[in-house]
């Protein structure tokens, strides 16, 4: 860790400025860790926009080379909700000791439901509202909130650890119900955003059907706060199902489980969600969730039991298991380095467990989390190939043990994650990385590293050729955030030049296209 700065950090100076306009700013952390972490606590959307506007002026004032070294940005803003997804940012900042130039924007005060229309199936709330709270509000009105995102996660010492509306939308964290309901972006009807220009702009609306104007808010869904700050959003809600049932089959092999799941998908049976995972018990578990009208659920569940075997749970038992299955995602969350590396099969998802709190400025264990996406028909092949690579790696490093990597798949939508521990000091060779990437490309899957040491992540994500979409992504970033206030950090601490894999890696890390069509000749 580097020594604390002798002079007042940029963030500290900016904090003083914000306090002068009645925006609360708090410092966390201590000098021995390289400086305090500064976070602003805006009271409402206008305050967030004010922070951005002040940042513009601040950057103008610090434009001269004497004030700030040319290689570093003057100031950067990082919004967050519950703070459960800051690990990537933390790792990058820690490497380059740039905390003194970053102001975190904590949306903890932007809470509250603005409008819940049970008769219209829509919900509008402020971005800092805990997801759990929203789920309770709509459940009382006979609705389900979607996506079925995890409610909590480990933090880095700042943030409540509870997922928020803005966080779920900003990270586009789909849940297993993606199979029946679709991804996150299908559920957002409109949003208000504190833009990088310092304004508070709305687009979309609160209606389930609406084509009025450009849906600029959609750019922020999944942007992880690298274009602006979501301050308010409207969601469409799903009706609560009359009945639920889950059929569970344990002790399977990976390929067998995925093949069965694929057969179900092809049969056209309407499922709510499905999982294949080895974090629940020994071996791989296939779980299939049906919901809807009671008679239909009964009929479908009988058919599932007849096809798959296994055991069945109904009603509250089914819903409770569905919650546990949903929370298996936590084992793959970027922050949970220690937990994933310890190989624990089950865990409690609350932030109370001390061992899950990673030190803000360092982690001495690494957990590599790979995310794979493909079309469902090749999921079994993709997973088998990826798992073979993981197991080979483990065998190479820990010759006396073979640790099965943790695995979680939502087979119907072919979204899969592997988590494997990488001991500190171990280098995964570039050759090993490109071997896996090539193999994935050959079967038509996209691969990304969601968690792990920054350089390793960059190697994984940089191994893929840059997407065609970079042309537009760069243009939009330049047009909407020309000063780079929210721009993604590269591993070197400077804002990543737009268009580089490092920039994409910092933004959404996990899925870079290996798109064979991207070389279309004009």
């Amino acid at each position, binding site marked *: 860790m580097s020594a604390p700065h002798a002079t007042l950090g940029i963030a500290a100076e900016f904090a003083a400025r914000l306090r002068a306009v009645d925006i609360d700013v708090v410092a966390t952390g201590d000098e021995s860790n390289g400086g305090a972490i500064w976070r602003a606590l805006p009271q409402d959307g206008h305050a967030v926009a*004010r922070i951005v*506007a002040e940042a513009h*002026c601040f950057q103008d004032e610090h434009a001269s080379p004497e004030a700030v070294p040319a290689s570093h940005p003057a100031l950067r803003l990082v919004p967050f909700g519950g703070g459960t997804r800051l690990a990537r940012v933390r790792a990058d900042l820690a490497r380059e000791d740039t905390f003194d130039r970053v102001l975190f924007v904590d949306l903890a005060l932007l809470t509250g439901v603005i409008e819940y*229309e049970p*008769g*219209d*199936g*829509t919900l509008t709330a402020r971005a800092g509202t805990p997801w759990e709270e929203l789920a309770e509000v709509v459940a009382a009105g006979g*609705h389900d909130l979607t996506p079925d995102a995890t409610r909590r996660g480990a933090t880095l010492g700042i943030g409540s650890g509870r997922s928020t509306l803005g966080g779920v939308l900003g990270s586009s964290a789909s849940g297993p119900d993606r199979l029946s309901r*679709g*991804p996150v972006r*299908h559920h957002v009807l409109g949003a208000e*955003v504190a*833009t990088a*220009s*310092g*304004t*508070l*702009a*709305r*687009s979309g*609306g609160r*209606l389930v*059907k*609406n*084509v*009025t*104007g*450009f*849906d*600029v808010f959609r*750019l922020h*869904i*999944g*942007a992880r706060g690298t*274009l602006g700050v979501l301050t308010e959003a409207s969601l469409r809600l799903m009706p609560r199902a009359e009945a639920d049932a889950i059929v569970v089959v344990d002790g399977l092999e990976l390929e067998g489980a995925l093949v069965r799941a694929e057969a179900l998908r092809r049969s056209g049976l309407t499922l709510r969600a499905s999982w294949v995972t080895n974090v629940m018990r020994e071996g791989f578990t296939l779980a299939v969730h049906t919901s*809807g*009208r*009671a*008679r*239909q659920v009964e*009929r479908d569940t009988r058919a599932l039991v007849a096809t798959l075997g296994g055991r069945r749970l109904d009603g509250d038992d089914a819903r409770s298991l569905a919650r546990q299955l949903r929370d298996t995602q936590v084992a793959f969350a970027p922050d949970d380095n220690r937990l994933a590396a310890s190989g624990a099969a089950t865990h409690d998802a609350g932030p109370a467990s001390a061992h899950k709190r990673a030190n803000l400025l360092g982690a001495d264990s690494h957990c590599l989390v790979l995310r794979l996406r493909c*079309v469902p028909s090749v999921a079994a092949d993709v997973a088998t190939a990826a798992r073979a690579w993981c197991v080979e790696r483990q065998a190479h490093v820990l010759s006396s043990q073979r640790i099965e990597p943790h695995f979680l798949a939502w087979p119907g939508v072919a979204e899969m994650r592997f988590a494997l521990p990488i001991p500190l000091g171990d280098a995964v060779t570039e050759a090993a990385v490109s071997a896996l990437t090539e193999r994935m490309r050959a079967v*038509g899957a*996209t691969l990304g590293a969601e968690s792990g040491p920054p350089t390793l992540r960059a190697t994984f994500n940089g191994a893929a050729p840059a997407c*065609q*979409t970079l*042309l*537009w992504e760069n*243009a*939009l970033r330049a*047009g*909407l955030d020309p000063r780079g206030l929210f721009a993604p950090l590269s591993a070197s601490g400077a804002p990543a030049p737009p268009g580089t894999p490092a920039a994409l890696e910092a*933004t*959404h890390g996990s899925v870079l296209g290996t*798109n064979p*069509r991207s070389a*279309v*000749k*004009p």
Partner: protein
Amino acid sequence: MRQRASPDGATACDRSEGRWGVSGTTGALGRSGPFGDDWSHYPSPRMPLAPELLRRLRDLLGDAGLITDVGRRLSYESDGLSLERGLAEVVLLPADTREAAAAMALLYEARVNVVPRGAGTGLSGGATPIDGGAVIGTARMRKVLHVDTIDRWARVQAGVVNVDLTRACAGDGLFYAPDPSSQQACTIGGNVANNSGGPHCFRYGSTGRHVLGLTVVTATGEVLELGGPGREDEGLDLIGLFVGSEGMLGLATEVVVRLLPAPERVETLLALFDDLDACCDAVSEMIAARLEPSAIEILDKLTIQAVEASVLRAGYPEDAEAVLLIDVDGGNEEVAATVEDILAICMRRGALEVRRAADAGERKKLWAGRKGAFGAMGRIAPDLYVADVVAPRTKLRQIVTYATEVARERGLKLSNVFHAGDGNLHPNISYDRRNTDEVRRVLEAGDLIMQRCVDLGGALTGEHGVGLEKREQMCMVYSDVDLDEMTRARRALDSAGILNPGKLIPTRGCREVRTRRPHGHAPAVQPLEVPR
């Protein structure tokens, strides 16, 4: 575009500053004149395109792909919004992505504006040409390129007609869900530009929920692949931004769409009511009860009579004040349970009768009647003002009552046919455009209905888009700050502003048009001149 800091610390863009860009379209809505965008390098209209440019376009596209003859160009002068017209200098019909991109590059080099066009069935003027510009049509890009029956997706060229897509995969037990009423003619590319809906979007969602990937030709003539099967998550949600962007961000030449498996069972119900209000309330109750039929439509008496008098003759009861047309699909048991609940609600709300379609043939007739309703209205009067407004489902009855009153006060013939399940209303007004006073009253009524929808928490348009028709009314829903952000995004992707300029974003700052027009005041439009 000038950025300046305003007193409260926010920067503001003055959208209305700038020199004259391109002449407007002519038409009853009075929007001829400057669009007020700062694209000052724009060539003056009325000047023909440089012969060299035309020659290069002809070399690229061949005679089949280039239309310069004025008679043929006139057939492209408007889309479904016939009150607005424009004459393009040239109409291009590329055969594939490569030709489209090369043509766009040439037009960009010359800074000629480009209006993309599918079938021209749009109702808001999104495909109305700009005088002196170019139209790029997708009419020669009609191939279904690939259907993947295992992973349930299809890649099609943008000019594929909507209903043809479903036909192409029906044999494999699949279908494409978004089904606009114009689906016999409208194209997938047009559906993407407008984020089109249709009756079955109640359950399945509009086009935006069915696009997995796009091949887009940008304003500068580059080709981008967005998303794709299994990779629709990548990067920023550019597909989400593009769908519904009304041809102002790029030209989609190929679309990858999601296909759904055909449901096990479909039931079609026709509920008869002697009171339109009760009909609306029945729908509100179904939504509140969390029922999920796949489509809920309302047709009122005037519409029913028009349909029955036409070739469509769907079997609607001519003495009912209103009917509910409902589709329920899914698994056997699910459908049975939902139908039971719907029947109960209808009877509770005073339905005279609920009929069930006996077979696929009858179902087809009932839906053909609904989808042909706008056309059938031609029997009532020569012209039809097809309004498209959207409001929360809890406010259906209020909007319908208000629309009826507004029309009655102005002596106008109002008919209602709408996607009640989505709160997307089409209070349509029959008129004769040769009667200039009637035109004035029609537009006034339309504006008032739109304003009331917005006041009740609705928006300007549920599926037809903003285009030219509702451009100024954007200020009812958005502020300058909101529109500025949209303008920034648009300019980031089309810095020269050649794609469909002058649509969607209002020409004047909203601060100038904020005041509502009180009841009875003349609207700020000019009546249509009778063409010689």
